[in-house]
């Protein structure tokens, strides 16, 4: 059974994305949702399912300001099936995977998938808003092992992996920097990207160190914004407005790696997700024409490129160096809208949106030349991951 093959993306929507918008989280969400529904050629009344991640969570950090019930109420949706994938799931793409399951099981016909963040607004109100570990007292669970040492952010934790990778595989700072420079170069062609001014390798090397060896430009950008998709059953999708973008394969993983469970400190569960993806696919990585690879931190892109098999172990540095191979006209055009490093942190769903833009040929000046028909998209970090393979029907 390959449930994903029966499902297609039929419409996409993106709200204003900004470093500090004045719109409410709900307004951003409504904007993205209505855009996606209209793009699919549907009306609000056609939507009978909602899937999101992680549901409304009033953590104060703008990580999850809008839940499915909020959107139902705002739009007057008439829905039977809905679901919010929890934080404890193989990435934000779990919202997509759950929608695929529901559509394939016949629980819904057109599912609206959305993800909204207001991390920039929240940070402007309170600089501590995004302290993942909270601010005081005893700490249990995930952060128990690092927060007592002052590590209350994922950055130093990612940095330990980056350091070991650079040590073992001789990845240079210039090579790692090529990922950030490529993102910025591509963002110039994306009107929705938050950072579009040119970034040189020297700018990258001169940027301040956050946690050695990771610099400011290795870190993605918290933003306000919402992204939405309509997922439909393939038999319906073939009679709708846009050419269906099919899910060729899905790969998920509950992997090792991370604060509590480091493995070799140079990789994480992405390999498991990638192995599942290729095992379920009828096409291979050589068929991929455009790649939207998770870049919540630049080092994660390194891990994913290896895991997905685009590079052999230890060879990512040579592959990305100089940016030619990953540029718009390169062997593997990557993060064509600027990724999270320059377009903003929409938690992987921005990458999926960009994959659809490219497959539908809507990229404008950033459109990949070779009329891409297959896109690989990945999301996830240490301990979890999900990869999607999208193709034209």
């Amino acid at each position: 059974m390959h449930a994903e093959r029966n499902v297609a993306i039929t419409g996409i929507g993106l709200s204003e994305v900004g470093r500090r918008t004045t719109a409410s989280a709900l307004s951003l969400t409504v904007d993205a949702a209505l855009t996606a529904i209209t793009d699919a050629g549907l009306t609000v009344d056609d939507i009978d399912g909602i899937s999101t991640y992680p549901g409304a969570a009033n953590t104060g950090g703008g990580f999850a300001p809008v839940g499915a019930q909020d959107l139902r109420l705002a739009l007057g949706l008439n829905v039977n099936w809905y679901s919010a994938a929890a934080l404890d799931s193989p990435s934000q793409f779990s919202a997509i995977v759950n929608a695929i399951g529901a559509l394939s099981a016949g629980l819904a016909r057109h599912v609206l998938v959305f993800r909204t963040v207001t991390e920039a607004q929240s940070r402007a109100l309170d600089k501590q808003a995004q302290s993942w570990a909270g601010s005081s007292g005893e700490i249990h669970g995930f952060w128990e092992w690092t927060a007592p040492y002052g590590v209350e952010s994922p950055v130093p934790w990612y940095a330990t992996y980056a350091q070991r990778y650079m040590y073992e595989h001789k990845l240079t700072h210039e090579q790692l920097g090529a990922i950030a420079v490529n993102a910025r170069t591509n963002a110039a062609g994306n009107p929705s990207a938050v950072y579009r001014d040119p970034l040189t390798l020297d700018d990258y090397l001169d940027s301040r160190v956050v946690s050695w060896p990771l610099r400011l430009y290795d870190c993605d950008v918290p933003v306000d914004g919402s992204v939405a998709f309509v997922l439909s059953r393939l038999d319906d999708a073939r009679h709708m407005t846009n050419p269906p973008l099919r899910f060729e394969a899905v790969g998920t993983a509950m992997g090792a790696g991370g604060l509590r469970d480091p493995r070799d400190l140079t990789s994480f569960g992405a390999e498991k997700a990638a192995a599942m993806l290729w095992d379920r696919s009828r096409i291979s990585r050589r068929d991929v024409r455009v790649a939207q690879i998770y870049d919540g931190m630049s080092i994660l892109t390194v891990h994913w490129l290896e895991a997905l098999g685009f590079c052999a172990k230890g060879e990512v540095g040579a592959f990305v160096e100089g940016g030619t191979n990953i540029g718009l006209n390169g062997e593997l055009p990557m993060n064509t809208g600027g990724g999270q490093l320059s377009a903003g942190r929409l938690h992987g769903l921005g990458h999926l949106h960009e994959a659809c833009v490219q497959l539908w040929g809507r990229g404008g000046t950033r459109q990949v030349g070779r009329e891409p028909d297959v896109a690989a998209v990945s999301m996830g970090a240490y301990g979890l991951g999900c990869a999607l393979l999208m193709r034209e029907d």
Partner: protein
Amino acid sequence: MTSTIWTHGRRVPGITPDTADYWTGGATGRLRIQHCSACEQWQHPPSPVCRRCRTATHLASDAVSGHGRVASWTTNEQPWFPGQPVPFRVGYVELVEQPGLYVFGGLIGGTDIDDPTDKPVVTRFQQQGEAWLPVFEITDEE
């Protein structure tokens, strides 16, 4: 034992029956790690059972030597809360008792060593409330 060697955190571990031995071993000057004597397997973080044989019958927190090597490290330069002293080094230490037996902690000493990867460490402790945080001192001796 009263000297302050780690000043970069503001949180204390929430000690539970599962984690108490790890966080309080420093009170007697020994780092304690779970060990299954049936499997001859060390494991960290602690679990109610051995992750290999899935029983608790032979599971105990045993003292380890406190010796290891720096598996990976970072020098953190950005403060994560107001007033946090920076920079500071943290990282994963692989304990000598078993390949892949990693613990995370603060790294001290070795300030003249630019890249402490694979350098040997010894365990020290920083008392913090009920807990004794293991902190790893980089040495230049094999």
